[in-house]
């Protein structure tokens, strides 16, 4: 009996040791760089480049893919909590969370690196792409001003149209105003073709579309004033924004079931010519090529409601990577990222994955459609560039309210009132949280 007990206790001890060893932080190899990413379409190309880098420099870069993006975010959050982040990783979150990573010492400040060699690295990259990783002097997050990330590519989200289907509906040129857009979708419906498809089963795409029009209708300052709580969502300009979705839905301009479509499904719908317009990002070039190589399409800015104000679109950000501040291979990680964003590697990445390169010099070697996307980079904006962002809960309810308008369950006025009441409650809660933090 005693023998059995001793054996059991011994086994238990081994099991415990195993548990603790596997839970403990692993010793990091300073001669190896580990990169964690979420980009399915770029994994192979990244691995090829990593192999090429090892051949050139002798430094091994291990590329690990964790997909889909929300699973990646969960993994990064969990490893940040255990302080076991890889040498290079990405933060797919709001600027506030990016700031939290920096303030907790997880992200290296790359400002000095960018300034080296007469700022050659900085000058080679698109300013808008760098700005996403930049914290300005007067940032509200309390982060030391500087640049904290490296953009791998740039992107923007626009309206893509199917040339063949437009021709079928007798439309000679893509719409230039919102009214023309509605007319075009009516003409398309008459020949049995659906209008606009997008992944509005994913909140961020609805938010992007809605805020494009909010900027067009009321301008950036008024949108920011709303985020600060100085303009209510019941303001006539915001009602106009909500009415856009009501109009699109009422006039049959949207694909049936758009509110539950995930972007992958929406991309399939457009590639298989089930809809004539898509609201999608420049990454779609690669996706559509994979789904239907013969697809003939072009790209336009979302047709404005207010012709007096320029249309702003989300973009500039693309995918960015950051360097782990505590990494023993920090310098090697930075060197690899610098090499990865150099002209040749960027051109290779762009050719293989059909994404817009972050390096301006690599732009000369891209297909026409990508060049069309790149042509409007001046129109881009992004929440990560704004001084203020909406409270997460309010943004979520704002998107849900738009879904309710599309399915006819709320009027624009009801939606605005609902979002405003949540905004008031959340601002009150935020004030209490702030007081608590200060205490």
């Amino acid at each position, binding site marked *: 009996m005693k023998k059995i007990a001793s054996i059991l206790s011994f086994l238990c001890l081994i099991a415990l040791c195993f548990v603790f060893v596997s839970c403990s932080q692993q010793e990091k190899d300073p001669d190896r760089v580990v990169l964690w990413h979420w980009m399915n379409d770029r994994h192979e190309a990244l691995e090829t480049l990593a192999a090429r880098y090892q051949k050139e420099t002798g430094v091994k870069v291990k590329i690990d893919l964790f997909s889909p993006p929300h699973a990646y975010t969960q993994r990064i*959050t969990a490893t940040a909590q255990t302080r076991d982040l890889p040498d290079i990783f990405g933060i797919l979150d709001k600027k506030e969370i990016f700031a939290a990573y920096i303030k907790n010492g997880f992200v290296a400040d790359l400002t000095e690196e960018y300034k080296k060699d007469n700022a050659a690295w900085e000058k080679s990259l698109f300013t808008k792409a760098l700005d996403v990783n930049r914290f300005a002097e007067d940032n509200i997050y309390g982060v030391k001003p500087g640049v904290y990330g490296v953009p791998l590519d740039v992107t923007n989200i626009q309206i893509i149209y199917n040339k063949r289907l437009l021709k079928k509906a007798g439309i000679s040129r893509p719409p230039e105003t919102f009214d023309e857009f509605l007319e075009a979708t009516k003409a398309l419906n008459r020949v*049995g073709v659906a209008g606009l498809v997008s992944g509005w089963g994913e909140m961020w795409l609805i938010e992007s579309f809605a805020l494009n029009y909010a900027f067009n209708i009321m301008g950036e300052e008024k949108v920011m004033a709303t985020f600060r709580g100085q303009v209510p969502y019941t303001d006539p300009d915001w009602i106009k924004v909500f009415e856009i979705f009501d109009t699109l839905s009422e006039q049959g301009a949207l694909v049936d079931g758009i509110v539950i479509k995930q972007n992958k499904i929406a991309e399939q719908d457009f590639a298989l010519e089930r809809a004539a317009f898509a609201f999608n990002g420049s990454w779609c070039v690669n996706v559509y090529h994979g789904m239907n190589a013969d697809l003939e399409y072009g790209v336009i800015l979302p047709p404005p409601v207010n012709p007096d104000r320029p249309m702003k679109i989300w973009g500039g950000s693309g995918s960015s990577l950051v360097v782990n501040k505590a990494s023993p291979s920090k310098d090697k990680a930075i060197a690899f990222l610098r090499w990865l964003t150099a002209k040749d590697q960027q051109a290779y990445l762009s050719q293989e994955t059909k994404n817009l390169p972050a390096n301006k010099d690599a732009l000369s070697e891209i297909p026409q459609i990508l060049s069309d996307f790149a042509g409007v980079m001046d129109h881009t904006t992004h929440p990560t560039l704004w001084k203020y962002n909406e409270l997460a809960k309010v943004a*979520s309810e704002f998107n849900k309210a738009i879904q309710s308008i599309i399915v006819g369950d709320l009027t624009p006025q009801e939606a605005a009132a609902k979002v405003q009441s949540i905004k008031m409650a959340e601002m009150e809660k935020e004030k209490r949280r702030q007081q608590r933090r200060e205490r």
Partner: protein
Amino acid sequence: MTSLAQRKKFTMGDAKESLVNFSFILPAVILFSIFYIYPFYDIFRLSLHEWNGIDAQKYYVHFDNFKELFKDGNWWRSMWHAGIITFFALTFQNVMAFALALACDQKIRMKKFYRMIFFIPPVLSEVVVGFIWMWILNGDMQSGEYIGILNYLLDKMGLHHLITSWLSNPDTVLTCIALVHCWKGFGWGFIMLFAGLQTIDAQLYEAARVDGANSWQIFKNITIPMMVPVILVVIFLTVLGSMQVFVLIKAMVGQGLQDYTSVPVSEIFESMIGLKRFGYACAQGVSFGVTLITISLVFKLLSTKVKQY
């Protein structure tokens, strides 16, 4: 005094024996403490804090997260949605499972084939099931034809008035999800109920028939009373499984129509990943856990009473 006097003196030998006995359960106790007790404790501790999941600093907020949860309309709506799905599962799913189990318990041909067919949906991944049904219930059209099988068939049968966008219509989306959940889950109930029916002694049926009982009397007075413990287990597992449905919804509608399809697990997920409110998400988790434990205890009590009966 008598009892004290009667109590045996605790000797060194007894202590050793207790220690030896304890060492047998020590591995289980340690593992249970690490993987069950500690996470429960830590989740409860976090539920009393405000934390974004990244900052080293967590702010102690007493029971504020629970107070906020109590007033959170979205949370109660998600509980209501889970309740509706559970209601469908308890009625439609389990009645169907019981009916098919009874049918397969009769002397019919291809019994094994049916058993296998009925057990296919439960072994499929929820993501796969979600995508299959999303395709069946698709309301889109291409070149004048419906893409979704259901609408296509309704169209061909001339039942145009029944055609709708099943998953993007607020009136039908939750019912569709509940029915798909039932379709996926009824195989478990079927197997358990079928196994329960097999344990009923055939002599009881024969004796009843000799006494002149008809099929309904046999079912009411023999099958049902003998099956009550199994039925209770099936109901218990159905409630727990249905209240926690999440992946199926995520696969079928993603983040779409959340106001009409949210369930407690999706709310917890949203609080933690979307809103980065780890403390609040833990408070939701604790409250939901307590609700499920309460349901479990009620069923435990019920099953004990049934056994006594």
